[in-house]
C-alpha cells in the first residue's frame, strides 16, 4: 500500500471515531439535559402560598406567624374573586331562563377550575382527598390552571376536510355585563399577588413521604426501598459470588465440569431480567415461601441472582490479577491454601472485588423487571429495617414506571416523575463513581 493511501485511511478512521464520539456526546446531552433540568425542578421551584400552607399542614414546617400573614394577604387579593362568585350566584336567579341555562354550566366549570387553582372556596365543606385541599402549589402549574380558568380549551371541527383543531376561547366575553366579570380580571392580573410565588428549595423531597399518591410530598419510601433492595441483594450476592470466584480460581481443577460451570455463569449473565423476576415469583414466593407475598427479602434474593454473575466475574478477575509471587511466598512460609486465600489473596484482591460489587449495586438499584413481581408496590409506608424482610416496598425504578403510566393524573405530577428519574440516575452514577475512585486508588497502590 502506498504511504499516502495509508495516511488517508488513518485519517478517515480518526474522522469516523471523532464523529462517533461526538454523536455519543450529543445523544447523552440530548437525554440528560431535559432530565437534569426538569428533575431539578422537583427540588428547586417557585412555590406558591398554597405550597407553604400544605407544608405547614402536612409536614408541620414553616413559620406559623409568617404563614398567617401571607394567607391573610392572599385572602385580601382573593376577595374580589369570591365576591364576584357570590354576586353572580344571586344575579343568576334573576336572569331570564334562556340566559341562565347558557351561563350556569360554564359558571360551574369556571368554579371547578378555580378551586383547582386556588383551593376550595372559603366557607364550603372541605373535600376528602388531600390533593383537593390545596390550590396549585407550584407557580408553573398555577399558570396552566389560570389559563384553564380564563380560556375554554375546545376543538374546532368546522373544516370538513381535516381533523379538529385546538382553539382557546376566552370565557370573559360570555359573561360581559354580569357580576362575574371582576373574577376574570382578578385572576388574569393579580395571580402573582394571590399566589405569592417564591423560589423554594425542597431538599427533603428526597426523604419525605408522598402524600395522596405523589400529589404532594417527596419520594422517601422509594429511595429507602431502593437502598434496601440494593443493599440486601449485595448482602446475599457478595458472599456467594466471592466464594464461588475463590473456588473457580484457587481450588477447582480445569476440566469439563469447570468449563460447564463457567458457561453456566456466563449464561446466567445473559438471561433477561424479567425472567429473573418471574423466577423469583415462582421460586422464592410461591415455592420457598420466603414471605407471604411480595417482600424486600424476595426482591433482594431475586436481584442477588441477577448480579451474581457480575460479582463472580469481577472477583475472579481481581483474584487472577494478584501476583503469583504473593501466593508462592505465603505457601513457602508454610501457610495452608485456605490461610493463603484468606490472609494474602483476598486482601490483595479486595479493591478489585469492591469495584465489581459497587457496579453491581448500581445495577441492582436500577433494575425494574425483577422486582415487579417480587417486591415493588405502588403505595406503601417507609418500612423500618426490622419489618423490611416481610413487607413489600415502593422502589424508585418501578414507581417511576408506575407514576408515568398507571397514575390517574400523570400530567399533574410531572415534576415528581422527573425528580424520581434524576434521583435514580444520580444514585446509580454516584455508585459507579465510587467504583471508579476505588479502582483509581488500587492502581495507585499497585504502582507504589
Amino acid at each position, binding site marked *: 500500500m502506498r504511504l499516502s493511501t495509508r495516511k488517508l485511511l488513518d485519517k478517515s478512521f480518526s474522522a469516523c471515531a471523532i464523529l462517533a464520539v461526538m454523536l455519543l456526546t450529543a445523544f447523552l446531552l440530548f437525554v440528560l439535559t431535559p432530565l437534569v433540568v426538569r428533575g431539578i425542578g422537583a427540588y428547586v421551584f417557585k412555590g406558591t402560598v398554597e405550597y407553604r400552607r400544605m407544608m405547614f399542614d402536612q409536614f408541620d414546617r414553616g413559620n406559623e406567624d409568617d404563614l398567617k400573614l401571607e394567607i391573610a394577604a392572599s385572602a385580601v387579593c382573593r376577595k374580589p374573586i369570591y365576591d364576584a362568585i357570590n354576586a353572580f350566584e344571586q344575579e343568576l336567579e334573576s336572569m331570564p331562563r334562556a340566559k341562565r341555562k347558557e351561563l350556569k354550566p360554564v359558571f360551574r366549570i369556571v368554579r371547578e377550575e378555580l378551586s383547582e387553582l386556588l383551593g376550595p372556596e372559603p366557607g364550603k365543606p372541605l373535600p376528602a382527598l388531600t390533593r383537593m385541599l390545596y390550590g396549585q402549589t407550584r407557580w408553573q402549574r398555577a399558570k396552566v390552571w389560570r389559563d384553564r380558568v380564563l380560556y375554554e380549551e375546545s376543538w374546532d*371541527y368546522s373544516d370538513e376536510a*381535516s*381533523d379538529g383543531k385546538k382553539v382557546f376561547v376566552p370565557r370573559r366575553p360570555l359573561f360581559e355585563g354580569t357580576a362575574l366579570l371582576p373574577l376574570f380580571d382578578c385572576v388574569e392580573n393579580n395571580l402573582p399577588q394571590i399566589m405569592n410565588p417564591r423560589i423554594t428549595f425542597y431538599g427533603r423531597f428526597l426523604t419525605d413521604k408522598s402524600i*395522596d399518591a405523589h400529589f404532594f410530598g417527596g419520594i422517601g419510601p422509594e429511595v429507602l426501598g431502593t437502598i434496601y433492595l440494593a443493599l440486601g441483594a449485595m448482602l446475599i450476592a457478595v458472599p456467594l459470588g466471592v466464594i464461588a470466584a475463590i473456588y473457580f480460581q484457587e481450588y477447582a481443577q480445569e476440566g469439563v465440569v469447570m468449563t460447564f460451570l463457567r458457561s453456566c455463569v456466563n449464561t446466567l449473565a445473559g438471561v433477561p431480567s424479567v425472567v429473573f423476576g418471574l423466577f423469583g415469583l415462582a421460586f422464592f414466593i410461591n415455592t420457598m415461601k420466603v414471605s407471604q*407475598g411480595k417482600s424486600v427479602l424476595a426482591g433482594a434474593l431475586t436481584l442477588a441472582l441477577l448480579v451474581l454473575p457480575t460479582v463472580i466475574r469481577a472477583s475472579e478477575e481481581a483474584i487472577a490479577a494478584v501476583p503469583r509471587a504473593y501466593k508462592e511466598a505465603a505457601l513457602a512460609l508454610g501457610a495452608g491454601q485456605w490461610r493463603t486465600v484468606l490472609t494474602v489473596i483476598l486482601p490483595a484482591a479486595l479493591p478489585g472485588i469492591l469495584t465489581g460489587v459497587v457496579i453491581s449495586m448500581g445495577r441492582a438499584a436500577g433494575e425494574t423487571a425483577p422486582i415487579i413481581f417480587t417486591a415493588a408496590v405502588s403505595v*406503601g409506608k417507609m418500612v423500618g429495617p426490622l419489618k423490611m424482610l416481610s*413487607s413489600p416496598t415502593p422502589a424508585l425504578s418501578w414507581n417511576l414506571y408506575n407514576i408515568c403510566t398507571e397514575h*390517574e393524573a400523570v400530567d399533574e405530577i410531572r415534576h415528581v416523575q422527573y425528580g424520581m428519574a434524576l434521583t435514580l440516575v444520580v444514585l446509580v452514577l454516584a455508585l459507579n463513581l465510587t467504583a471508579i475512585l476505588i479502582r483509581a486508588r488500587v492502581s495507585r497502590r499497585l504502582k507504589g
Partner: protein
Amino acid sequence: MKKSLLLVGLIAGVMTVNAEQKLVMDGSTTVGPIAKAFAEYYMRENPGVNITVSESGSGNGAKALLNGSCDIANLSRDLKDAEKAAMKEKGVEPCKHVVAFDALPVIVHPSNRVKGLTIDQVRDIYTGKITNWKEVGGSDRKIVVISRDTNSGTFETFMHLVMGEDAKIKESAEYTGSNGAVRQRVQMTKGAIGYAGLGFVDRSVKPLSINGIEPSADTVVDKTYPLARELYMFTKGTPAKGSLVEKFLDLMKTEKGEEIVEEIGFVPLGAK
C-alpha cells in the same frame, strides 16, 4: 462474620417484633386509584397500620388472593368460573364487596370529529371490519385500535359488554398494561380509539357517546350508558368482626369513602 450475625439478628427481629398491622392489596389498575386513596386515608387516621397497594391487573389480583399473597384483591370484573373453581379447590371462599360503579368510556383523540358511535360500530372497529374513521363519519384516517391486556378486568368487561361471545379483537390491535397507558396512547395518536375507567378520562382525550348516551356519573346511575360495571374488592371469606380488613372495607360505606370515590372520578355506591 459480623454481617451474618447482623442478618441472623434481623431475621430474629422480624419474627419476634410484629406489632404493626399489615394489609396487602393487589389487582386492578382501575380500582388502583380508589385503593390508593383509601389506603392513604386509612393510614393517616390509623398511624399503626401499613397498607400496601400494587396494581398488577385484575387477573393477578385474583391469583394473589388464591395464593394468599394478598389480603384484598381489587377486581374490575367479577371472578371467572375458572377462578372460582380454583379457589374452591384450595378451600378459599371469596367474598365480594362492591366499591364503586364505573363506566367504560370509549375514548378517542380530541381532534377526532366523531362524536359518538353505536355499540355495533365499536365492535366492528375492534374486530377490524371498520378500519377508517371516514366510515363512521370522521375524516380519512386509519383507526389505531388500543385495547387493555388480557389480564385486565377492564378487558374482560369490554369483551363481555361490547364484543359478545364469539367476536375476536383484530390481530393488529395494540395491547397496553394499564388504564393510564391507554389514555396516554390515545392522547398521543390521532387515529386512536381505546377504553378506560371513568376515573382515568381527563381533558386530554375525548369520550364518545355510545348509542347516543354520554358516559357520566348520571348515566351510570340511571343505567342508560350501556358500558357500565361495578368495581370490587374481594377478600378470603367474610372478614372477621373487628379485623383490620373489615374496618378498612367499612370505609367505602361511609360518607368520607363515597366522597373519595367521587372526587377521584368514579361513581360512589350511594349515588342517586
